[in-house]
């Protein structure tokens, strides 16, 4: 447990020193710029557009960090051979993977919290209502980000960083299109296409389940049951992928 915390702490430190958190500055400028531009619109439109824009930006920034930093967590240690001295310590490979994951998860959670606070500040300053649904949306954004991180980590335990990035982005895109996939598969005339698409539908996580941004932007709450189910879905999926990552990592040679 202690080793896990030490690895997580170092991951946190490394990410901070890599200046990942500069994204926050970028995000702040974006928000201020957007709200200045939107000042000319009527109140009702303004609220929805700011909410749409803010949630989308939070989501995008978080997912980008999750994918690129998430992949680097393991592949960089292997490429730079720092993994030799880490694994030469009394730390199991599982502790290593989980420590890395938790370190980044913590950073991303803090990051999302800061972005969200800045966003709420903008909403408030521009004189709009802060809807409860915004909190629901951001909670599912966090869940999606944790899931995407697990996907990135899973791929990076057995493939190069470029390949991992490609596959993670692929799964992310397909994950948002799964319902379309099913529809296309059903309409498809080719058996092969149908089989491939159906397989993808079942293998890739359905990330649209975690996307309630549209509804939340106009202030409509989702049911608590849905919120909990979607959260459980994302967390379980991430847990499964992390288990897979650990199993693969256990068997690897360095």
């Amino acid at each position, binding site marked *: 447990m202690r080793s896990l915390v030490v690895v997580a702490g*170092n991951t946190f430190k490394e990410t901070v020193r*890599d200046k990942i958190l500069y994204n926050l500055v970028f995000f702040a400028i974006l928000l201020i710029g957007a709200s200045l531009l939107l000042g000319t619109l009527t109140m009702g439109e303004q609220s929805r557009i700011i909410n749409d824009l803010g949630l989308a930006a939070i989501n995008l920034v978080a997912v980008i960090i999750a994918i690129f930093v998430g992949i680097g967590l393991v592949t960089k240690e292997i490429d730079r*051979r*720092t993994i*030799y*001295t880490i694994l*030469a*310590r009394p730390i199991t490979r599982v502790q290593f993977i989980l420590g890395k994951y938790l370190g980044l998860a913590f950073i991303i959670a803090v990051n999302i919290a800061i972005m969200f606070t800045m966003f709420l500040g903008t909403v408030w300053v521009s004189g709009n209502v802060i809807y409860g649904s915004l909190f629901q949306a951001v909670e599912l954004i966090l869940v999606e980000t944790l899931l995407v991180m697990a996907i990135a980590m899973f791929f990076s335990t057995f493939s190069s960083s470029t390949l991992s990035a490609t596959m993670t982005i692929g799964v992310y895109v397909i994950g948002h299109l799964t319902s379309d996939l099913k529809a296309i598969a059903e309409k498809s005339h080719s058996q092969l296409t149908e089989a491939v698409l159906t397989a993808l539908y079942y293998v890739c996580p359905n990330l649209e389940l975690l996307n309630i941004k549209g509804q939340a932007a106009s202030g409509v709450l989702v049911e608590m049951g849905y919120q909990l189910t979607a959260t459980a879905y994302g967390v379980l999926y991430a847990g499964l992928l992390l288990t897979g990552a650990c199993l693969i990592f256990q068997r690897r040679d*360095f």
Partner: protein
Amino acid sequence: MDAIVVDGLTKTYKPMWPWLKETTVLSDVSLSVGQGEVFGFLGHNGAGKTTTMKMLMGLLRPTRGSIELLGVSADNVAVHARIGYLPEAPYFYDYLTAEEFLRFYGRLAGLPCETVHQRVPQLLDRVGLTEARDRQLRKFSKGMLQRIGLAQALIHDPELIILDEPMSGLDPIGRKEVRDLILSLRDQGKTVFFSTHIVSDVEMICDRVGILAKGKMVTSGRIEDLVNEHVAQSVEVVCDGVVGDKLAEVKSKAIRILQRGERCLMILPGQDHLEEVLSTLRHAGGKLVSVIPHKGSLEEIFLEQTNRRA
């Protein structure tokens, strides 16, 4: 209990495609290192030293064979708390300063904070990096990296220290410093297992050596024993005033005869025919200049043993 017991260690790499041939880089290596010993692991580049050491540290999975470290199976990573390891050509988190770096490894080794704070300055001093303690590792020279690497391996005061080519990339003074460090570890009762491809590195400081060639352990033991066993002790005889026919009589007994004018130098394979040769020379009217028994060197054994496999 021995510090390291390796039995029948084998590593085979399976290629991605099943129709390609698999390569065996280490086959059936067995060795043991006693506690408090300095053991030199000698072999040319590509012999399999790094592979062996990585398997000791659990970085590579053995295809076959067993490894015991300090009486515990190497699969149990808890034993790493008592082992220090310096990988070959190490590379570390370069955004950390020397001090932060050692603290991180100390914490990873399971040391409490106070102990880490106490030991970091001691170790920086021991490897001569006190001045550079606030410098980021990215600004370190190769020799400094090697030294901080050694400090990292020693931060938790391990009983067993495994060093992969600790002298490589160092200048003569640096090599001597590493040798002195290893000797001081031995004085503290630590076990040191290190690899090198340079014979003189082991000759001066090792209790025992193992020679690895092409993934096989060709020989191991105390240096004196190896030298006595393996290289027949040749004798060099120098004599004046014996030429032509007379010399032909002793020719069959010698490995090599060199003649320059009056003087002749011959190398006999051992002491067996020494008396016979000497009396022949005397009878021929020769004047004996010198008789020097030659001891083999580790270098000779190393070259002989590794060439035989080539």
